[in-house]
């Protein structure tokens, strides 16, 4: 098991947002977090990456618990937020470089990946632009590339396909499957159920801040069919 969330509860300003959430993921698995708007998907993700404090519970990636040594824990994942979160002082190229330094990515692997991704996401001509000169989708692309650069065990993605054009979405889908086959665990949230079926191995459905059902994605399809009837 690579990611383990046990009994995790979160409050924001006194309101319980997540209650006793349990979740686990194995290497080479794509786990989809699904649920209505406001179900708590993004909150759960922010909690797992340490951006939001939790009230109680245990969160572990591999052997590293979030509460013991946050910095070591943070080296084990990368994250694509709901809304692109870029450095205003860095150009596209400098963003990639900052991620290379932060995750100590090997020079050769880095160069190859940057070239490949910039080509695939069609932002090669934007490599010296600052974030405010990019469109929303381009910012999303830069953010996505940044998160795909390091070789980390877990990748968290909040709404990966929002704002991406068809080609980029297609490429991202393929790339996620490729990385998964290399053993990466990917946690993603999405409202596009066809993507869930095409990509995910397992799903976790949140409802009002607690897990209402979970399991292999086939059972999700069954659940969906039952709800339709």
């Amino acid at each position, binding site marked *: 098991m690579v990611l383990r969330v046990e009994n995790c509860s979160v409050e924001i300003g006194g309101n319980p947002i997540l209650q006793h959430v349990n979740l686990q993921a194995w290497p080479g698995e794509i786990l989809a977090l699904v649920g209505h708007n406001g179900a708590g998907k993004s909150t759960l993700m922010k909690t797992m*990456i340490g951006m939001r404090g939790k009230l109680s519970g245990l969160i572990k990636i591999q052997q590293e618990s979030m509460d013991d040594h946050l*910095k070591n824990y943070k080296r084990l994942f990368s994250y694509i937020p709901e809304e692109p*979160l*870029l450095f*205003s*002082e860095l150009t596209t190229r400098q963003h990639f470089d*900052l991620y290379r330094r932060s995750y*100590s990515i090997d020079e050769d692997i880095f160069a190859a990946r940057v070239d490949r991704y910039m080509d695939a996401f069609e932002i090669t001509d934007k490599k010296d632009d600052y974030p*405010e000169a990019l469109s929303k989708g381009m910012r999303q692309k830069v953010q996505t590339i940044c998160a795909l650069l390091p070789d980390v065990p877990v990748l968290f993605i909040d709404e990966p396909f929002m704002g991406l054009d068809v080609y980029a979405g297609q490429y991202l889908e393929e790339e996620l499957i490729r990385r998964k086959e290399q053993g990466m665990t990917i946690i993603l949230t999405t409202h596009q159920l066809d993507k869930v079926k095409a990509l995910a191995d397992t799903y976790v459905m949140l409802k009002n801040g607690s897990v209402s059902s979970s399991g292999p994605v086939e059972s999700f399809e069954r659940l969906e069919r039952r709800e339709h009837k």
Partner: protein
Amino acid sequence: MNRSESWQVFRVLKRSRRQKKMLLYRKSFHTLYDPVVFLYAGVMAVILFFISLDWLKDFTPFFQTLEKRALMYLPFLPLAVWVRACMAAFKDSSLPFTSSELHLSLLPHSRRDILFYLYREKAGKTLLLAAVLLSSAGCLTPLSSAFILLFLIVYGVSLLFEVWIQWRLYSTPWYIKLVLAAAGGMVITAGYTAGSFLGLVIGTLVWAAAASSACFYYYEPSWGRIAERNDAKVWNLWLVNQVTNVAVKPPRRFTAAVQRRRSSWFYPKRLYDRIWLSHGKESYNYLISSLTAGVLIIVVVPLQVDWMIFLTVPLAAFIFVEVSTSIFHNFFKQPTVFRFIPVEDEQLALTYVKWMNPLLVIYGCAVMVIQGMLGFSLVSSCIQALAIACWTGYDLKGSVLEEMKKVNEESFYPASWNRLAGYVFTAAVMVYPPSVLLLIVFFLTRGGFRLNIRRKRTL
């Protein structure tokens, strides 16, 4: 990841920030900044430096007593600096923790490390500044170097704590800051009145203990708010956005509700200042010649026929107002870059008035001079100069605001009769100073008039 990696990343970020800021400033201000101005300013600074050097020599005994007294008050310094930190913590977080630093702390860098780097940088900068200022004071004045060193040590150590205290206190509730500031002030006054050194030291220690426990107990920074504040500060957002049409920060959201207080943003005003300074530079000749004409009218004519002063002074005031208004009007006829900036009209006009007002002092002086020559008493000439300055300033404001409405093609009632009355009253003050009462009554009622007019328009 070891520490030095984080430090490298932090430095890269800082360097890029500097580069981008330079780029933005160059883009925004090349239209206004003139290297010649800097040259003149440099020459002036050098001249002033030598003048002040010479001038300081006369103050040797003063500095000697100053040194003795300052030594006496040195024990107060740390607490005074910390009380300053409490006050500053209301507005400023001291460590420039922006959203980029926040973002950095989501990557594998610990937030503590980043805060430590920020602290080091900030403390280093303030210390360096203090050292430079104090040592240049030591070179220029006859203060002894032992004293300077002692002062620097005490001040430096207090500064190191100040940065930390201010950062911690920024996130505490307002009453904590207030209570700490008041307590510090009380300890200082008590120490001062009792004149007891030991009491002051103990008081300072107790205060420091209370402050640090408050800092620890309440330390719960709302990172989103801090980042937002500092973003605005670091990027000088509004100004640069408006001038370059580049939104420096893409819209983003760390916390659900980040309240902005628009009113506390002083950047627009600074922009208006720049606008009028540059426009003033262009209209320089026009302005100077009309001012000279006004002063000549005030001074020369009454020297020939002394009762003419009753006419010339209001006339000069009228000329000044009309010329100023037409300079204001010209601004809107020219195709400057600032025409395309969305500005708040009334603020823009008021800033213009603010810049024109000091020129009235010249008129006031001219009136005083001619009165002195004609042998009027000092009191009456003071009243008259003040009256003329006030009236002119008032009329200027009114006309400029009217002009603004004209430019915007809004409808309004021109206040011609009111203006005429005002000038008549000013003339009356020139004849008989106590009729300044008339002018005051007029000011009061005219305020009423304006209200009525506005009410009528909204109906």
